[in-house]
């Protein structure tokens, strides 16, 4: 133990205020590398990157008749940049929520199932600190997945279609660079929407020791929410559904930006994140760890 003692005392003391932040970042980094090195997650990300490419190829080979297919699809053949938006619309309905469900559902329940949760807590990682790291990592995964879709679609669009000035939904035409900035805004908005779903997944993950149960429950919630969102009889409840605002980023593609709807969406995402984050915190903070 003497060597460790010396090792611990070796370095100059860090400013006391910075130490906890740096150690938090180290834990966070370790969490990220766990997520992004996991073969299952890598396979998921590969599929997420492949689908926009596939979509681009299909559109190149057989452009759909006008008016059919998802939004933005018709513009793709004229401007490859629109492939990013078309791909996000396609991915945000099933694949991206599914990927988030897998990562968020696994986050705490996976550690409980493997028994590593008890080691993390006795190390000690701190329960609140652990939860914060877990949620931050889910957030990064959401961002990475959305960015991946956009980048894969963008590259495919550049390769297969003409690319140029972007005509917005309001009819205005803006330079390509500005158009890409709009795409980035859409990506960030979608990330926020997925993070809200991730927060629900995190809460579910704290309620069970079975990661598959948490994943499945979250997928059921997402699908039920999407179905409910399409039933017009209950339209009064639609704004409160977790997936309702996921695709409500049209306003970001107008000039000037019409933020009224996106603000509603962001408010809904924040509400979901706070409510389910609190549930996760209350649950994990008091839970008996018997796994």
């Amino acid at each position, binding site marked *: 133990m003497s060597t460790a003692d010396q090792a611990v005392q070796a*370095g100059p003391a860090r400013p006391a205020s910075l130490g906890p932040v740096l*150690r938090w970042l180290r834990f966070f980094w*370790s969490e990220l590398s*766990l997520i992004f090195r996991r073969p299952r997650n890598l396979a998921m990300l590969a599929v997420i990157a492949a689908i926009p490419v596939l979509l681009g190829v299909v559109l190149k080979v057989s452009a759909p008749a006008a008016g059919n297919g998802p939004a933005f699809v018709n513009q793709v053949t004229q401007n490859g940049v629109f492939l990013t938006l078309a791909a996000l619309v396609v991915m945000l309905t099933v694949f991206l929520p599914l990927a988030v469900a897998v990562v968020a559902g696994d986050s705490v329940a996976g550690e409980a199932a493997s*028994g590593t949760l008890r080691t993390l*807590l*006795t190390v000690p990682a701190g329960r609140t600190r652990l939860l914060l790291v877990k949620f931050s990592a889910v957030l990064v995964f959401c961002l990475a997945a959305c960015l991946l879709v956009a980048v894969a679609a963008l590259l495919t669009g550049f390769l297969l279609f003409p690319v140029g000035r972007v005509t917005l939904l309001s009819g205005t035409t803006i330079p390509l660079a500005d158009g890409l900035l709009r795409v980035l805004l859409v990506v960030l908005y979608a990330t926020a929407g997925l993070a809200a779903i991730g927060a629900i997944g995190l809460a579910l993950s704290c309620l069970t020791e079975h990661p598959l149960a948490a994943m499945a429950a979250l997928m059921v919630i997402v699908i039920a929410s999407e179905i409910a969102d399409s039933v017009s009889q209950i339209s009064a409840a639609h704004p409160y559904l977790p997936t309702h605002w996921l695709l409500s980023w049209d306003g970001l593609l107008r000039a000037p930006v019409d933020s009224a709807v996106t603000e509603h969406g962001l408010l809904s995402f924040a509400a979901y994140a706070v409510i389910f984050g609190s549930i996760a915190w209350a649950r994990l903070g008091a839970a008996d760890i018997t796994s």
Partner: protein
Amino acid sequence: MSRDEVGFGQGKPPDRDGSAVRWSAAAQQAGPLAERAVPRSGQAVPRSGQAGPWSGRSGPRAGQADLAIASRGLTKRFRRGQLAVDGINLAVPAGCVYGFLGPNGSGKTTTIRMLLGLIQPTDGGHQLLGSAMPAGLNAVLPRVGSLVEGPAFYRHLSGRANLARFDAADRTADRRTARARIDQALDRVGLLAAAGKHYRAYSLGMKQRLAIAVSLLQPRDLVILDEPTNGLDPQGTREVRALIRQIAADGVTVFVSSHLLAEVEQTCTHVGVMRTGRLVFQGTLAELRDQHAPRIVVRTSQPELAAKVLADLELAEVTSDDHQVSALLGDAAPEQVNATLVRAGVPVAALDTPRPSLEDLFVQLTGEGFDVDG
């Protein structure tokens, strides 16, 4: 076996103010054989004016000279109504190797989970290294290494990557020394050569040793190991035992649970014996051995007279019933006791000096079989 337990604060509700918890108090009344494990009076002597570990006035280090672990009436009833731990009063002196013995299902792991703040006791409380839990959990846990309920790791990571993960999670660990500390921990458990292998490729013995390595990532004052030799072959068991001795040699208090007496016997200075959630013996190993100090048993038609003779010979713990008298033999020679008895006119029908093994004693304390009354 009576419900009575050996320990301080017998039968009293946890009392957090004033009464000093001291090993000595517990040791004095560390009960002999289970059936005689009736607590003496006068335990848990309140020491007025002195801050006991429970007073709340003692600083984090204050209690350390005395007890590394002190619990009072620590109880866990699971939601299904199962009483897993029933009001135990642990007293683990700093610097000792404490064997926490008990058959499967007797509540060892549940106790350890409570000690480490993984689960909440339904009653009672405890201190680690002089700080009251769970308030001091975050401050104290960095000084406590632990292994709970067998090894648990990330299967797809190497041994070294697993240690790096847990070190990264430690809110007190310094990244700059991580590499050195991880290698040192691996070295201590003899896994340095296999550090790059995937955890799933490890043998059970390697997994157990890696789990012990986690508890050695930082300099510790207390190491709590839950059945570290469970499932190991004799060679692996020997290795772990040597490791425990090594850890203890650095002055670290070691609290190690086991369901095998033989394992504890060779490494521990103190033992606590659990039976269906209750602590039925606590004391030094020497005191446990004293339980099977040779007794003399005299079968006679006049037990009262025989008892008086044995008492006159200053033999300790004289007990008698209708047919026989028994006492601790101590230094007395059986033939001399016999001669004295005969001289005093006691008709000695038979005289025996039975010597139960430590193993017999353990079985006596804990009951036969697995989980019979759990």
